[in-house]
């Protein structure tokens, strides 16, 4: 049972304990003395938030240790703990980072100039963003006008039959130091299994096949009656040589034919056949067909001048369907020739065919530039 007198005596005794911590508990009732003893012990009670804050501090250190593994971090944590309690007294009022209007003052200095600079920087950024939006809108309108004004058009690909006779060429050699020796041409054939050779490098072939050159059967070639194979146009009578070219034929070219050209024909051209060029459409050579035709762009100056017309290009369509050797036959100028070449270089063809096989062929194409 508590009586008002006992409660008052207890409070008075507690006041005395605060006044003089070393004073002995006064001679009072035994039960009151026991309560005063507890009160004396409570004078060293820790602050209620101390336990939790110390735990947070320890866990921060633990994270630092487990994350960085550095003894330095732990050492700094121990040193930092020396002023732990004093830091607590102010910690509740402080913020770790400064706030815009200076809350947590004392942690960091608040400078008015920084605030002003920040406001100014944000204002400039806002103006830039807004003005750039207007600029983009205006620019967008201009682009729309340009696109509606100009629409390039390319006419259908037109292959021109330039010749009624087949043409082409071939060459070879085996890197000899001597020019190819004179001799007769091998048998003509649309297909070649073995290239001609003056000097037989393989004395014991597994399969013996007569050497041929790739020349259409209807073409009559100038030949001679010399007993050995060779280049009929050569002025070197001997000693026997395959020539300075490469590719296993005869001559100074590259390939499996005879002459200074490339491929398996005879002469200075490429792509088989005979003569000084490549195949042209006609004479058993079927025209190539464009299967991929990206549109050419209009050059800015031609667009501005509203200039129109047709560019004619000559080119070689290779057996793989690609266009090479582009040359302007009829020019328009104002950058349209270059634009036409750029576009046609990207074209892909179903190649020309001779006897069912793809061959390189020279063609001309028209590229129309028209504004409407």
């Amino acid at each position: 049972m508590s009586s008002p007198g006992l409660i008052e005596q207890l409070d008075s005794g507690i006041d005395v304990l605060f006044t003089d911590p070393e004073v002995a508990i006064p001679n009072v009732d035994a039960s009151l003395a026991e309560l005063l003893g507890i009160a004396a012990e409570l004078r060293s009670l820790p602050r209620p938030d101390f336990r939790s804050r110390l735990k947070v501090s320890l866990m921060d250190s633990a994270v630092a240790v487990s994350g960085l593994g550095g003894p330095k971090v732990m050492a700094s944590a121990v040193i930092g703990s020396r002023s732990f309690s004093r830091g607590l007294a102010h910690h509740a009022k402080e913020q770790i980072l400064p706030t815009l209007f200076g809350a947590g003052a004392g942690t960091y200095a608040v400078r008015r100039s920084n605030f002003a600079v920040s406001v100014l920087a944000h204002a400039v950024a806002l103006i830039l963003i807004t003005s750039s939006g207007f600029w983009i809108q205006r620019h967008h309108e201009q682009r729309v006008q340009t696109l509606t004004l100009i629409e390039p058009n390319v006419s259908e690909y037109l292959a021109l039959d330039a010749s009624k006779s087949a043409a082409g060429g071939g060459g070879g050699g085996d890197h000899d130091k001597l020019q190819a020796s004179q001799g007769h041409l091998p048998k003509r054939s649309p297909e070649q299994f073995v290239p001609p050779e003056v000097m037989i490098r393989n004395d014991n072939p597994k399969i013996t096949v007569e050497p041929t050159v790739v020349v259409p059967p209807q073409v009559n070639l100038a030949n001679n009656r010399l007993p050995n194979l060779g280049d009929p146009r050569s002025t070197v009578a001997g000693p026997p040589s395959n020539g300075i070219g490469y590719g296993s034929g005869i001559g100074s070219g590259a390939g499996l034919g005879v002459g200074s050209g490339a491929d398996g024909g005879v002469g200075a051209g490429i792509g088989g056949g005979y003569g000084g060029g490549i195949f042209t459409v006609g004479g058993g050579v079927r025209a190539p067909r464009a299967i991929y035709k990206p549109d050419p762009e209009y050059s800015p100056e031609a667009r501005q001048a509203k200039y129109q017309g047709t560019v004619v290009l000559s080119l070689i369509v290779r057996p793989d369907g690609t266009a090479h050797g582009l040359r302007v036959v009829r020019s328009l100028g104002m950058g349209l020739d270059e634009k036409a070449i750029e576009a046609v270089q990207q074209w892909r063809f179903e190649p020309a065919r001779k006897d069912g096989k793809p061959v390189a062929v020279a063609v001309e194409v028209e590229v129309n530039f028209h504004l409407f």
Partner: protein
Amino acid sequence: MKTQFPRETLVRALEYETDERLLIEAAQRDPLRFAELYESNFERVYAFVAYRVRDREEAQDLTAEIFHQALASIQRFEWQGKPFAAWLLSIAAKVLADRWQRLGKRQEVPSDDLEEAAIESVVEQRAILFQLVDALPPDQRHVIIRRFVDQRSVREISQELGRSEGAVKQLQFRALQTLRGHMRSTYV
């Protein structure tokens, strides 16, 4: 003559030892698990320090330093069958010795085992008392904290709570009675 302990006491002691050992090993693997060791030993270490250092703020600083040192050297702890608290108190003794040395004072050393046992008993009671304060009803706990930690007068507390001084004194009285009751039940 061999001392005979009750069977249930031995089992409980073994369970405690095993649990604590597991906690220590866990903290050695993952320092974040040190939190559990901290929670179970905080009052004991603080009471040990507060008994020797009268100033509360300094006692808190030293307690923080002791636990930080323990965390830093937990990897070196080797289980030898002794309670973890004993290891913590050995760190506390060293920290206190350093403190006396810094201040140029002589440390009070117990004169004999009897005095040392008495001090241990007081420290143990104080640790339990600090724990019991947290278990008080909120209004009684508030009065105890404001009166004994913040050293506010009864009048100031009564103004804070909007109650009469008599009511605050009554709460103070009941709080101390509650603590006494719990202490008695703990030690009987």
